[in-house]
């Protein structure tokens, strides 16, 4: 790692210098005499400084004894999984949609983080949890949407502006989400024979649903951000 970073910096500075040299040296409007240093000056200077410093650091790191430190393979697997899942999330965001993609992303990472490892033997349990999480999230989302629409229609029919406002809609969705999360916790505990703690898979799923809904309420319902709907057309 200690040597890789300066080498990466050297490559980046060389690329940056190449980009700077390839820039067209245009003149600023009103600069007939050509006194403006131009768009190339500062990038060139920065690139040269970066190159010099990274060469110096590489030289220093080369002289120092390399630190032989091998990380925990389970942690390494978790980091790689997090990276892959995050890239997949970004790629799938538009086609799959915010609600489903976010819930699945959160469940996947929460589940494996709890297990502190990534193993093939966990697949069956993971897929069961993933399906449960997706179903529960869709249910909570749909319930919230239905109640919000109901109040919206009621507001328009009765000309009650309170019911048609976005703050009210956000409040109603939040209440629906909290209600179903509490119900789910209650039922899951009953299913486990009244034991105090839920399974880690259930905690991951409930957290995924709750976080997804809160983000939806905050950004979509309160701030009117256009979150991709993807597969969920309703």
């Amino acid at each position, binding site marked *: 790692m200690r040597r890789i970073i300066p080498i990466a910096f050297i490559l980046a500075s060389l690329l940056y210098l190449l980009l700077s040299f390839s820039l067209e040296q245009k003149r600023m409007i009103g600069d007939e005499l050509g006194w403006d*240093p*131009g*768009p190339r000056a500062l*990038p060139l200077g920065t690139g040269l400084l*970066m190159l010099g*410093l*990274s060469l110096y650091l590489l030289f*220093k790191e080369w002289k120092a004894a390399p630190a032989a430190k091998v990380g925990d393979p389970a942690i390494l697997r978790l980091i790689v999984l997090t990276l892959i899942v995050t*890239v997949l999330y*970004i790629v799938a965001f538009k086609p799959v949609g915010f609600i489903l993609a976010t819930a699945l992303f959160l469940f996947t990472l929460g589940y494996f983080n709890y297990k502190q490892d990534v193993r093939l033997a966990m697949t069956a349990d993971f897929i069961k949890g993933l399906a449960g999480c997706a179903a529960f999230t869709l249910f909570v989302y749909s319930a919230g949407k239905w109640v919000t629409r109901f109040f919206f229609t009621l507001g328009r029919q009765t000309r009650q502006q309170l019911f048609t406002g976005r703050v009210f809609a956000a409040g109603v969705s939040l209440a629906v989400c909290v209600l179903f999360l509490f119900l789910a916790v209650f039922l899951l505990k009953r299913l486990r024979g009244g034991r105090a703690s839920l399974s880690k898979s259930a905690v991951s799923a409930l957290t995924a649903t709750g976080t997804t809904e809160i983000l939806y309420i905050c950004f979509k319902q309160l701030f009117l951000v256009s979150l991709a709907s993807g597969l969920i057309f309703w």
Partner: protein
Amino acid sequence: MEAFLSGLAMVFTVETILWLSLGEVLGIILGALPGLTATMGIALMLPICFQLPKVTGIAMLLGVYCGAICGASIPAILLGIPGNPNAIATVLDGLPMTKKGLAGQALGGAVVASFIGGIGSMIVLILFSPIVARFTLAFGPAEKAALALIGLTVIASVSAKNIAKGVLTGCLGLALALMGMDPFTNSLRIPFPSLLARTPLAGGVKLVPALIGLFGISQAFFDLERIKERQLAPPQVKIENIFPPLKKILQMWRIILESLGIGTLIGAIPGTGASIAVFLSYERAKKITHSPKSKLDKVGTGCLEGIFAPEVSNNAVMGGALIPTLSLGIPGDSGTAVLLGGLLIMGIVPGHQLFEQNLSLVYGIFISLFLANLFMATFQLLGVRIFPKVLAIPMAILIPVVIILSLIGAYAIEGQAIMAGITNMGVALLLGLIGYVLKKGDYPITPIVLGLILGGMLEENFRRAVKLAGGNYFVFFTKPIALVFILLALFSIVLPWLKKRSRT
């Protein structure tokens, strides 16, 4: 007076009070969770503040900042693990107080001390920032370019053990800031222009996704490495008698005043940060209490004096750091660097013009800061028995939540543009990974942010100065103020290097 009343009206709205309260609670929770920093909290809240009215957004960010600094004392006192570097010195007397059964008084003392530090430094901020801002009236393009340079070099040299690493990451930030469209000629400065010219990347690297990636995603990956370390749990201690006796506080007047002075001064020097201030204050308090004439309890033995010194100091750093941020546009530490990014995104340009043309907004910021301190004290005292419970939140859940907040935050600033939002997520992830790798290699990431923030100011004024001087590149050495700034910038790099050499 009219501006003050207008500022007051901006702050005292239901919306502002609610968002400030939410920011405060979130800040305390973030501060209390080891691994999550105040800077990360502010970065994650930027997309939300972007959607709010200016003063409301700033008030919320200040709430997160205040709350996170004070909240860090909770695990420091109860578990001996600081929530973030601001509370490193609080551990030294906080944990022994908990062991003595005085956890309540230590937690309460930390809140009172933080409040005193916050309000004291706010008064200094109100008194000095307009004066410093007036000073910038004498600045032309050459001086402004030199000022940007000093902001970059000071942070780069102080934030890293190795100056070369700090300057290198500062250059990386600068290189990223210079990508996109040239502000004067509109020519594109991006790699593969034929490919990227029609993508959102043609506009260069946007500040919010970069900040979120560097402070949110990189921290999440960093914390992932420590997921196997033992899960923290709220300690089973009785929390009672939270209010420190007034007589005791009055007896500590010298410690309070000195810590306030140290915190504010250190905060006002760009790049220094709270971790230096808290140790300096702690050492001063140690000297005061260990003198033969002193009637105070000895710092280091588990007493309120050892809590007050660092806690007054770390909250005083905030007000101090806001002085150069608001008056010069040069942040005092990483937290104010992100805060400055937030101000710029909202179209607020710090400096003399802000104080001259938008005084009501300035008053709005000052009043918000006062309320942020007041709410911080109120919420933390009211929730002194509740907030320690957040220590039970497992990292397994927190890490994905931080990553998703970062990604959706980066996405949300684009509002209706889905593809631009998705590009922002990619930028945040890429910069998060770069930040993570750099952190692992002991490279500081704050200079990248400074490079990104100050890059535009540096280039614009550098080119304007050279053009106005008829193409003379030595114009910076002919103007006295610019020359002083350049010498200071050089000094900030050479001095630590010389010190290191003399030590070896």
